[in-house]
């Protein structure tokens, strides 16, 4: 195949959550870990956009929630997202282009 491997780009990725008590902490953690991200609040939904990359860290969310938080719990409140996903136990990463 001749398609060139895409470089990492600055095209925005986004992730959207239902607005509730749990996601307030998730959103706060994302804000902290991704200073470049912009948060938009809609009725009952909050959408976070970030150029090129966005990361959700398990530890940051756990600290804010005051309990152990499993990254998989993210799906309970997830509405939609765009970008490629790179998932480990500790981090949930969204990006465009080549995996790091």
């Amino acid at each position, binding site marked *: 195949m001749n398609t060139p491997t895409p470089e990492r780009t600055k095209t925005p990725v986004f992730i959207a959550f239902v607005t509730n008590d749990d996601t307030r902490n998730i959103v706060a953690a994302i804000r902290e870990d991704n200073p470049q991200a912009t948060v938009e609040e*809609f009725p009952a939904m909050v959408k976070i956009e970030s150029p090129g990359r966005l990361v959700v860290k398990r530890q940051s969310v756990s600290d804010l929630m005051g309990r152990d938080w499993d990254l998989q719990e993210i799906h309970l409140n997830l509405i939609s997202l765009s970008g490629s996903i790179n998932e480990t136990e500790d981090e949930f990463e969204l990006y465009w282009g080549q995996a790091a």
Partner: protein
Amino acid sequence: MQVDIKTSNIKQLRNTFSHVARRLGADKPASRYQEATFDMQSDTNFHYRPIWDPQFELYDTARTAIKMADWYSFKDPRQYYYGVYTMNRAKQQDAAEKQFEFAEKRGVFFNLSEKDKEHLIFAVLPLRHYEWGANMNNCFCTSFGYGAAITQATMYNTMDRLGLAQYVSRLGLLLDGNIGDSLEVGKQHWLHTPEWQELRRSMENLFVTKDWFEVFLAQNFVMDGLVYPMFYKHLETRLNPMAGQTFSMCTNFMQEWFVETQRWVDSTIKTAVDESPENKEILSRWFDIWMTETTRALQPLMTALFAEEAASIFMQIKEELLVRAKKIGLKTPGAPA
């Protein structure tokens, strides 16, 4: 016919209560924990001082030597308010029930030799009374403490203690086949057996300690910090393998509870230590006093339960507590670097 679905956006006027907003610095959405904690305790418009203790207000910051600019800085890292607390404990209770059911079905404890049973009853059943004492001490902190941030957490702790005591009783019932004799024997150990008397004396001294923050530190940090690892971590290795396994299974809740509660206790004391050098002095002094006292009180039990290993295990337990103390900023003379 065409149907248009229109959405309308209703923007709420306020995100939280004014008193919470004042603490957050702006009208931001607050967590349930914050709303159920901040400024919950009344602090003005009391007409009379309590006639049973007229030198103090009903809620008075002067009941402890510890000084805080803001008594609501004692945040609970677990963020327990009534809802979360009860849901969490209910889940844990379900798990613990299953473990007891399993132990009962297999009849492991019931089939132990009389000698092993007697040993377990001597070693563990008196802890029912230890938990009841801890319940009293945390009740004391709840009634004389200042600010809902700390008093609500100590109140939850009192309930935990009753639950813990009940689990110890359940162990006893597994041992005596639901007759309940073991509970009475356990009580007699707590009241009369020489090895337990020093711990009981410490506990009773704590009942008459007047400063509620000192009681908090002595009970929840020092005593628990030594007693829990001793009974729920190291004791298992000294029991015969079958009893040991079942014992650790049935005390899984205690082990989990201790880890969880440590986080809150450590962060509470750390908050007070970080507040001022004066607080640090006072807390370090209390720590030193109660560490010495409790170490002395546990010595006979250590020897009885761990025989030739007593010294090394006790050293390990003490060092763990000293490391915790150092981490939260208490001065610990003689602590390992």
